[in-house]
């Protein structure tokens, strides 16, 4: 390869470059297979002339040319540091010097610049090549492209940040659940039950979102999961019916909806259709005329329970239903305390997540 360039190169190249190439030819003559190996390995490599100022490059393999985008002609004779992204980067220069001196322990990471101006990180390993008298005549440097590694590090850092953000928000949610339960005048026993039941509702919503890789959750699944503890422990499964499309909601909306429906069910168990042996609940939603602003209508209808009056004070449950559901559905919530039982009507537009598909 080097020989192919020779006739053309001989016309234009400076004295030192020609001499450098002669050294390579000499190397090739003496240790042919090693030079072929160095030329064809996937590891980017160069040799430099240690005796000249700036360590000019006297050999560069194909991988090095691929990595940097330069031609061999452009690289040979250049100073070793010509690829530095920031030529006056003292830290990099000092690191390279330490690597040249043999005082760096495990290679250095340097930001380099390709011919097209793009930058890349490379791990650089430098070993001296000594003559018989022990004097350093050349340096042998290899470069490991860290682009992919750095990209993975960035991704993992961003995952850690995202996880941290989610954990902090979850802790704040838990704090709010506990804080609001303790603010009520309920007995310690009731407070404990309330906190536990809300935390378990939150936990079920997390499970649902985890099954969907935290991308979205379907409304049918959200409601089924929120009502699951009431259908199991109270053997109410035949008294609750849920019908509607599994329209997708964002994780944030899914978490709030899960707690909202949990609160409606808790209320039904305490005071409503699930507080006696015969009441039942139907939850149904469907889409009306697509042109209307709030074209979905969801109805939570309790029948067969004792008549209930509107609550006198507005606590956590009514807040999560009236304000939480309205906010996350982006629509209106109306509660009707009928003789037959509570009817909660929710009108809302298609969720952003379902529009995106």
């Amino acid at each position, binding site marked *: 390869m080097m020989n192919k360039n020779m006739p053309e190169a001989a016309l234009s190249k400076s004295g030192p470059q020609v001499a450098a190439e002669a050294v390579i030819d000499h190397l090739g003559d003496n240790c042919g297979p090693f030079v072929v190996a160095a030329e064809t390995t996937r590891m980017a490599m160069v040799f430099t002339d240690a005796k000249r100022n700036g360590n000019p490059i006297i050999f560069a393999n194909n991988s090095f040319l691929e990595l940097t985008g330069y031609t061999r002609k452009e690289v040979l004779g250049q100073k070793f540091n010509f690829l530095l992204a920031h030529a006056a980067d003292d830290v990099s220069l000092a690191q390279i010097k330490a690597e040249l001196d043999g005082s760096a322990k495990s290679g250095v990471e340097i930001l380099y610049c390709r011919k097209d101006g793009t930058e890349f990180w490379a791990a650089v390993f430098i070993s001296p090549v000594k003559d018989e008298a022990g004097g350093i005549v050349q340096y042998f440097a290899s470069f490991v492209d860290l682009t992919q590694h750095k990209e993975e590090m960035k991704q993992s850092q961003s995952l850690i940040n995202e996880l941290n953000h989610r954990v902090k928000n979850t802790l*704040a949610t838990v704090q*709010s659940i506990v804080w609001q339960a303790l603010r009520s005048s309920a007995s310690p026993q009731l407070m404990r039950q309330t906190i536990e039941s809300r935390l378990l509702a939150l936990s079920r919503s997390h499970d649902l979102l985890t099954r969907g890789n935290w991308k979205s959750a379907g409304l049918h699944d959200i409601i089924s999961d929120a009502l699951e503890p009431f259908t199991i422990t109270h053997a109410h499964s035949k008294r609750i019916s849920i019908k509607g499309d599994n329209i997708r909601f964002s994780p944030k909306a899914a978490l709030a909806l899960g707690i909202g429906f949990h609160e409606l069910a808790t209320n039904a168990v305490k005071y409503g259709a699930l507080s006696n042996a015969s009441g039942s609940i139907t939850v149904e939603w469907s889409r009306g005329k697509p042109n209307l602003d709030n074209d979905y209508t969801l109805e939570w209808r309790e029948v067969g329970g004792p008549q209930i009056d509107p609550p006198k004070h507005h606590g956590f449950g009514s*807040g999560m239903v009236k304000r*939480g559901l309205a906010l996350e559905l982006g629509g209106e919530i109306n509660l009707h305390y009928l003789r037959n039982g509570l009817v909660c009507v929710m009108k809302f537009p298609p969720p952003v997540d379902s529009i995106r598909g």
Partner: protein
Amino acid sequence: MDNYLQHRKILIVEDEIIILMMMEGMLEDMGCEAIATAHTNDSAIALIQTQFFDAAFLDMNLNGNSSSDVADMLVEYHVPFAYSTGNSIHDNRDGFCNRPVLRKPFGDEEFNRVLSALLHDGAMQPKRNAVL
């Protein structure tokens, strides 16, 4: 307890009802009677343009959107405010690095401390009338 919050109006901009309800409860316990809330950039900006607030708390992120437009509006209307966020790293944008930040979760003592500092700062600033 002397009620320094009497006749003060506080704005909370927060997109999570469950967090918002606790913040409202904490403010009520501190003696604050006038609390306004907003969940989106648009509704917060509309409130700031039409009502007077003594102080505000602004979630840095509202439904995945930066709330920086609201921050600019609060600055324009001279409403002292603190950010609230679930992020642990320092992520204040340029020019806002001196803003107090409530990192979630936060307790009522810290909430109280930040709020009284905001109201104190507000007293030092020239008042700009709300919409006349």
